[in-house]
């Protein structure tokens, strides 16, 4: 059987599974549509949260970033997992007790202000839309490589699949589909990693293999890798190259950004009890950690395999001739994500650290997808990785679309425009807004604005500087009032956006940038790390403004009292 047929069968089988689940779990009420009726077991919810959180970025991009960045990129590993500690202790249990459907709803009620709710809706829409664009183009890339169709065709297939199960099933359908998608993606991620780790170190657990001896040299794997890199003139893998300040702020931005992402927070509204919200965050991290503990090994080992493919006789000998390279180089060269430019015309692939002599340009995003081919694993593993990448992208896209549709139908239409809307019509509005969001995401996925990578920084910066501080102050302080929250969110948001625009260009028009991340405005603080500063500004402004104005009314203070204790939490309700 050829690779193409095998890909088709494996991907087709997983899609059939997702459809079957959506039909089985069809949502009937708004409670089932928005919050799965509050009846999802914490372990299943944890798995679904894991699939929701781990997007194409985690599955496809992260190990590649680590492979080429080494120690400095630990910020991603710590940042994207440490946020769950904050969620479990500072947000999830209290928001579950609050017992409504959406994040803007809490902000609106706690700060007794339609303006605050509206600001939260705007933040949510920007965050979720920028994210979903990335997922849709990820789907397009994965399809075009593995199903050998045009990226646009792949995108339409992906959009159709998401549309069918998200619109039909609502949160309940999405949650159970995501459980299945988690299983597919984690198997697809770990199996090649186990093979490769066994190959290079003899240790079947990649996270342990990373710190074991390489079978080729008998020395530790990382020592061997550092040796190869230094012989070729590349920077050391294990040393720190970024400044400590920037690495600290970047890690913190990713952590509080994670805890402030609306589509992740809303997952904790779907568990039956407050105690389940706490343990569910733990289970989510268990399932996320399986991938995140493996990713650093995948990164280091892929870098090593890449070098040994190019220099089969050792880095001191001549590199491989273009004519002799394995098939995967040809396959990826067709996609344009891997480029070979024979600058000195000797027919050999010279892979070096110098711009003048280096002839190989590898896009970081292909590392995970090409990994099984680089390591010469069997073809069913390659098909599995294709299905896994699609599962990661589709599950996150569905969760984001859910967050977008509930913000529009529940917070905007029911909350502000037409409070008298019937449950049936609200459900219809939710499905229509989801369909519109899929349309917009597909259009933008086909015509990516060219700044997808930068806008991710904006999404995290926004979540870190606006939503996380507002939620945390709403729970832990009774004194922060509506003026404080509104001015705090505006201040955090504006400074973060301005800082990002100063470095990436106003509205991402690159020519209007006054600074660059290579030489940032404030010391070594890159625009991607500014979310932490934005959050501090938000906290500070909210505190000062609140202490200068009236304290919140008694019923709001009682609301804060009541969300702090688990007793009396019913199922999530819209009223």
């Amino acid at each position: 059987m050829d690779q193409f047929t095998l890909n088709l069968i494996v991907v087709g089988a997983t899609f059939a599974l997702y459809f079957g689940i959506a039909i089985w779990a069809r949502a009937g009420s708004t409670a089932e549509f928005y919050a799965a009726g509050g009846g999802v077991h914490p372990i299943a919810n944890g798995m679904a949260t894991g699939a929701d959180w781990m997007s194409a970025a985690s599955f496809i991009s992260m190990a590649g970033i680590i492979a080429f960045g080494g120690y400095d990129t630990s910020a991603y590993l710590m940042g994207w997992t440490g946020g769950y500690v904050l969620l479990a202790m500072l947000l999830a249990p209290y928001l579950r007790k609050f017992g409504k459907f959406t994040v803007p709803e809490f902000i609106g009620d706690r700060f007794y202000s339609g303006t605050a709710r509206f600001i939260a809706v705007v933040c949510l829409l920007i965050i979720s839309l920028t994210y979903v664009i990335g997922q849709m183009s990820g789907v397009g890339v994965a399809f075009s490589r593995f199903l050998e169709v045009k990226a646009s065709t792949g995108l339409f297939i992906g959009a159709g699949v998401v549309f069918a199960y998200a619109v039909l099933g609502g949160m309940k359908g999405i949650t159970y589909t995501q459980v299945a998608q988690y299983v597919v993606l984690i198997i697809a991620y770990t199996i090649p990693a186990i093979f490769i780790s066994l190959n290079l170190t003899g240790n079947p657990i990649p996270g342990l293999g990373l710190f074991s001896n390489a079978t080729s040299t008998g020395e530790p794997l990382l020592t061997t890798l550092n040796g190869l890199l230094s012989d070729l003139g590349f920077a050391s893998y294990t040393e720190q190259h970024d400044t400590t300040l920037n690495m600290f702020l970047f890690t913190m931005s990713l952590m509080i950004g994670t805890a402030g992402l609306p589509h992740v927070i809303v997952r904790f509204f779907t568990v039956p009890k407050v105690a389940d919200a706490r343990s569910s965050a733990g289970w989510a991290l268990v399932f996320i950690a399986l991938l995140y503990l493996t990713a650093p090994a995948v990164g280091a080992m892929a870098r090593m395999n890449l070098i040994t493919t190019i220099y089969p006789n050792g880095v001191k000998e001549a590199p491989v001739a273009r004519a002799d390279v394995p098939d995967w180089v040809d396959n990826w060269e067709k996609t344009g994500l891997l480029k070979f430019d024979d600058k000195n015309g000797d027919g050999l692939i010279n892979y070096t650290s110098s711009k003048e002599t280096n002839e190989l340009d590898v896009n970081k995003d292909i590392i995970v997808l090409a990994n099984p081919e680089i390591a010469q694993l069997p073809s069913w593993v390659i098909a599995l990785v294709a299905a896994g990448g699609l599962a990661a992208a589709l599950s996150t896209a569905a969760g984001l679309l859910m967050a977008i549709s509930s913000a529009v139908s529940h917070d905007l239409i029911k909350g502000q425009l037409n409070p008298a809307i019937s449950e049936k019509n609200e459900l219809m509005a939710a499905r229509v807004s989801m369909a519109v969001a899929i349309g917009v995401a597909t259009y933008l996925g086909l015509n990516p604005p060219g700044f997808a990578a930068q806008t991710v920084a904006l999404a995290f910066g926004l979540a870190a500087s606006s939503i996380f501080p507002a939620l945390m102050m709403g729970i832990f302080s009774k004194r922060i009032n509506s003026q404080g929250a509104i001015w705090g969110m505006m201040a955090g948001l504006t400074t973060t956006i301005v800082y990002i625009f100063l470095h990436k260009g106003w509205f991402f028009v690159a020519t209007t940038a006054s600074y660059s991340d290579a030489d940032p405005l404030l010391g070594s603080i890159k625009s991607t790390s500014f979310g932490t500063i934005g959050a501090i500004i938000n906290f500070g402004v909210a505190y000062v403004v609140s202490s200068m104005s009236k304290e919140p009314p008694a019923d709001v203070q009682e609301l804060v009292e009541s969300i702090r204790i688990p007793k009396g939490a019913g199922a999530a309700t819209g009223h």
Partner: protein
Amino acid sequence: MADKSSSNAYWKANIRTIQISLVIWFVCSFGFGILLRPMLAGIKIGGTDLGFWFAQQGSILVFLVLIFAYAAKMNKLDKEHGVEE
């Protein structure tokens, strides 16, 4: 709803638990993984040092233990203060 004094004691105990947990959270990630890495450089592990291990493996394992320990502790506090569901 539980009476005010009890829920106040409950909330104080919760805050205390969160503070202790977040100190551990900070030390094991930002501390060992970034700020204190130079100090831990003498402790070698698999071709690099302990700080690298904490940054890429250890911190995540500590996060896991922290969340489950917090969930267990809070279940106990919920019962002690009669505020469980």
